[in-house]
């Protein structure tokens, strides 16, 4: 998280930290046996990693403490539409993990709500994104051991698309923005999600409840001026989420 703050304990109880191989990712608790994350976190070299290679941590805002209580996944479900062999296509960047044991919820571990059927995210509405990913400390990118969060506004789809078009003038390897994605961030930069936050939740709050509006997916650098973070639009995947959970 760039330009954010340390999250006090129990303030983001759905936050999950994933350790996949040597990489770090995020996720969110959505049910007592289900974790929602980004597909690209669980796919390496075009193949889904085996469940036993995924270590899941939750219930604390400190990685050192978090590491003491790993949880195991029994199976992983990558969205069938996720095809990203060249790491340039993040469409359908969503996945589910089923835990081998159910979680009992308390103040430190609590599920995040899913968006309502047909939910739309208004431009400018502030969301909250969190994660254990890269942050900037004294001007240098560092991997943090503290859960951080930052509040970012939802960016108009056109604005985001224009931003990416501008970047394409100087870079050829820019992924496409699809209707299954939305952007969040500020034009002046310095506030963003970053590597290691992938799979974490971009939440919106309605009627006092937080819900998973987006999943940290991709972006062009982190916190750079004129760029935005791109998030998987969760509201487009409610049928797939419900079916996957019900069928498994």
């Amino acid at each position, binding site marked *: 998280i760039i330009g954010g703050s340390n999250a006090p304990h129990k303030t983001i109880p759905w936050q999950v930290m994933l350790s996949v191989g040597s990489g770090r990712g995020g996720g969110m608790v959505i049910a007592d046996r289900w974790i929602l994350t980004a597909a690209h976190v669980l796919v390496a070299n075009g193949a889904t990693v085996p469940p036993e290679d995924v270590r899941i941590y939750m219930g604390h805002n400190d990685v050192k403490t978090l590491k003491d209580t790993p949880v195991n996944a029994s199976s992983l479900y990558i969205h069938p539409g996720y095809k990203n062999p060249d790491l340039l296509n993040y469409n359908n960047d969503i996945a589910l993990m089923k835990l081998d044991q159910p979680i009992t919820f308390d103040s430190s571990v*609590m599920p995040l709500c899913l968006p309502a059927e047909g939910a739309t995210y208004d431009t400018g509405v502030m969301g909250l994104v969190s994660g254990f990913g890269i942050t900037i400390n004294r001007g240098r990118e560092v991997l943090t051991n503290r859960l951080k969060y930052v509040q970012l506004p939802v960016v108009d789809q056109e604005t985001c698309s224009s931003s990416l078009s501008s970047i394409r003038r100087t870079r050829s390897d820019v992924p496409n923005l699809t209707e299954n994605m939305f952007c969040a961030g500020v034009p002046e930069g310095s506030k963003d999600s970053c590597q290691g936050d992938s799979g974490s939740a971009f939440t919106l709050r309605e009627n006092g409840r937080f819900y998973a509006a987006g999943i940290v997916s991709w972006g062009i650098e982190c916190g750079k001026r004129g760029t935005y973070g791109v998030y998987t639009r969760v509201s487009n995947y409610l049928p797939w989420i419900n079916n996957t959970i019900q069928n498994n």
Partner: protein
Amino acid sequence: VPDPDSPMFGEVQSPQYPQPYPPNLQQQWELRVPEGFQIRLTFTHLDIEAAAGCYYDSLTVLHKEKLLGKFCGTENSADGHHPGNHPILSPGNTLMLIFQTDDDNPERHQNLGFSAQYQAIDVDECSAPEPLDGSGPLCSQICLNTLGSYLCACHHGYELRSDQRTCVLSCGGGIFDEPEGHLFSPGYPMIPPHAVSCQYIISVEPGFTVSLNFSDNFHIESVDTEDGLICLHHWLLVTIPDREPIKLCGGSSPGLMETNSSTVKLDYHTDDKGQSRGWSLDYRTQRVQCPVPGRVANGRVTPVLTEYFYRDYLHVRCDQGYKLMMEGEEIQSFFTMCVSSGRWHLSLPECHIIDCGEPEPLLNGAVTVLSGFQNQYRSVVQYHCNQPFYSPLGGVNVTFRCDADRQWRSTHDVISSPTCLPVCGQPTKLISGYQR
């Protein structure tokens, strides 16, 4: 019954009849009809050489050694002895016919011999005179002639002895197993012959008791002593199992006698003297009585009667919310029967309050007792979820009551325990910042 091997009738003819009989004959026929019958022999024709004393040819009729007739000649012949139209009746059931001819037959008249028919005639034994040997009449009281035999019978109050001939005064004794009846001594109320020894056994089904009700007209000879009346020569001995026998005599009726037993033996004895006129009684039976059952707490005993007798049933049902218990075991139903010993075959059970057992535990919730004791009938418990992390499906905590069918049931008739749903998106601690 006529012997099937002995004919009831038949025909006898001389050899070659109706052709003349040959000379030098000596032929005999032994006629036999069933026992109890006589033979009546009737000649339809007899033509045997006539001679004085039937000297040449003859037909001799014998019963055993007794000569019944010796016949020859023709119906109108001057010589000989012709039976004419008179039949010959044998004293018994056999008859011997002997036909003899000599070696010379008159040439001018060819004698044809004889033809006769016989039939069995029933003997009326009853009208036979009394034998002179002093053995008495054939039947001492009533003689009944039957076809081929006879039967002896006795007047009312007497019975035929084993000799099937003589009669003896009837005791009227034996075993009485009907629920009620009437007994009396021989000849009652008349003075019977001496030396009566009669036994009467009243034996009804166990579970019933016999009561004897002697009529007022009671007279059994007694002897008056300083110690009172004693039944020295004549008595009626009443024997009830497991009790001392009671010897009755005198002129006063014992009246009603409750035996409390299903079996009573009466032995009436008189010696060869005295003038006892005897006794009579009616007996009745009634069912053995069982004690009135007690009450069963939290239950009902039916039917409710003032008295209970042999074969009466009792049912026990528990009030709603209670179960039948017997010797520490639960039973599904209960009945007991009044048995022949005057007891209930099973003692009454108890009614214990039912319980629904521990309510099912609630995942991510708990159950608390609101009222009642040990999960018993009508206890009320409430399920609640571990809030604020879980909330009950439907949003409100559910109460369950222990019902009579031993199920925990909600007010909406739901049996299964509720579900706790996780609460999402509501951290207990919110990120707060006041700096602007």
